């Protein structure tokens, strides 16, 4: 950072392309979304959106009384809470276990982060195949525990097992994400701080709790926030593995809004729900970050 004013050429290069891109592709549609949310417009109705009537807050009112929307919201939140908790604990544990040098460590890390590189559609396909009636989960793993009964488990036909299969896919793919952040954070804790604690007589466990964890706290918050935001978006797994079913029992917010917009063509209603979700995300993230950083008087 310098305190010289930016030269004009740099100002233009830094601002113009970025703003052009953002305005053209994102900001105009964003403003459009706000407008659409107050309309009663369905493209199937045969007229363009600029001719649609304004109906005020009706779409928002409808959303707050739409039990399918509310339960998809609740389900998504539960999903986020479950996967983020498990992924965080597992990722942190792994990061800690892999911190010290040992033969084969590089290979172990390379394997552990493999799922992270796969497209979610591919992961969804993988677990779609894993949980088939004659897939390896039933046919090999469960059959060796509970016998032939295992082949009768239809994972995607029962709400609870369908939901569990989604969670397993998510944990499989995203635990490495938390692991990576925690691992690089823990490795970035200056070695001399650890050594200083060692010569002062602290045990490894004590050092972990009193030195390492507090020092990486900002990154823990960031990892959790990023992961929670990503998990909240969950679409690909549901779309491919369960299709939201059985019934609407595994439908998440993303899937529901997608359906309303694309399959039911109710663009206005989808826009209103989108705005509600957006508002919710901003508020929750803001509170979480405030609680983690600013309350402590940083």
């Amino acid at each position, binding site marked *: *950072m*310098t305190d010289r004013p930016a030269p004009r*050429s*740099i*100002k233009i*290069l*830094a*601002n113009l*392309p970025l703003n052009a*891109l*953002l305005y053209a592709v*994102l900001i105009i*549609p*964003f403003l459009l*979304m706000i407008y*659409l949310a107050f309309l009663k417009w369905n*493209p199937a109705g045969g007229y363009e959106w600029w001719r649609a009537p304004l109906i005020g807050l009706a779409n928002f009112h409808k959303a707050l009384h739409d039990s399918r929307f509310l339960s998809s919201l609740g389900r998504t939140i539960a999903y986020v809470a479950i996967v983020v908790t498990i992924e965080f604990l597992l990722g942190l544990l*792994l990061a800690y276990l892999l911190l010290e040098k040992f033969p084969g460590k590089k290979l*172990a890390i390379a*394997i552990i*982060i*493999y799922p*992270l*590189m*796969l*497209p*979610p*559609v591919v992961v*969804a*396909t*993988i*677990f*779609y*195949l894993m949980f088939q009636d*004659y897939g390896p989960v039933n*046919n*090999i793993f469960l*059959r060796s525990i509970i016998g032939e009964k295992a082949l009768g488990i239809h994972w995607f036909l029962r709400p609870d097992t369908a939901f569990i299969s989604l969670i397993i896919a998510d944990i499989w793919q995203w635990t*490495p994400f938390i692991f990576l*952040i925690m691992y*690089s*954070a823990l*490795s970035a*804790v200056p070695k001399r701080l650890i050594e200083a604690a060692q010569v002062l007589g602290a045990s490894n466990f004590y050092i972990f709790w009193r030195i390492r964890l507090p020092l*990486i706290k900002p*990154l823990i918050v*960031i990892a959790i926030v990023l992961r929670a935001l990503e998990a909240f978006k969950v*679409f690909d797994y549901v*779309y*491919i593995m369960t299709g939201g079913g059985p019934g609407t029992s595994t439908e998440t*917010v*993303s*899937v529901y*809004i*997608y359906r309303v917009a*694309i399959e039911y063509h109710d663009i206005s209603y*989808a*826009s209103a729900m989108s705005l509600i979700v*957006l508002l919710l995300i901003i508020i929750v*993230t803001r509170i979480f970050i405030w609680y983690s950083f600013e309350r402590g008087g940083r």
Partner: protein
Amino acid sequence: MKWGRIVVTSLKYIIIGVFILWVLVPVAWIITLAFKPYQEWRVAYFIPKQPTLDNFIVLFKPEVFTGVMGATAIVEPVTKPLINSLVVSALATVLAVIVGFFSAYGASRYNTPGPFGIFFTLLTRMLPPATFVTPIMVYYANLGLLDTHLGLIALYSSVTVTYAIWILKGFIDAIPVEWEEAAMLEGASPTKVLFKVVLPLVRPGLVVAGLFIFLLNWTELLFALVLTNINAVTLPVHISKYVGAVGQLYGPQAALALIGSIVPVTIGYIIQKHLVTGFTFGMVRG
């Protein structure tokens, strides 16, 4: 004391080992499944008895399937989506990295793009694509950009430019301001400084940012699902349609998953080192 240490160490290796198995087993299953003939799709063992490439070959031919309850589906060959994905991901990446480089430089040295630009791009990352895709669909429909490469490229680069700025700003921050100031005194104008000093020094950063963004573009499903139809269909869309349409055709589905993995996994391992060290954002204080 000695015994305690042995127990702790072996426990550590057991946990790591179990996790490695947990990662590897599904991958191994898919790989072997992709090479199994029709008769072996439902068996309880890994290594195929009669390995075959049929599952791959079938993906490159147009096929008509009769699915459950007699519904038919026509599945296009995977060639076109594969090429679309390459083109769209690559061009969108280049655009995002170029725009991101200039903005990252401004942000690092002069705080230029301002809080609004940064906030807005962050917002687009927070928002579930499902909520955002609706107005874009309407907007693109009016502009005639639906099912075009250009439409996807523009959208992909605008939602990934944040990452480009974020990653490149980190790299530029690591270049001492003095290195630029020296060049300035030696007669370089501000733009010359940018191209002759900063650009060569930040080349590794451009590669990392580029590959990372390419990875994101390559794996994106929802935008492509909504905004494309026939012409600009990408690989993830193709996979989702294929898996949905052909029911229990396990072998080809596994083969398709493998094809979809090759490029991103290769890229992932190229930038692995940066993934491991790059995720701290300089936030651990010492």
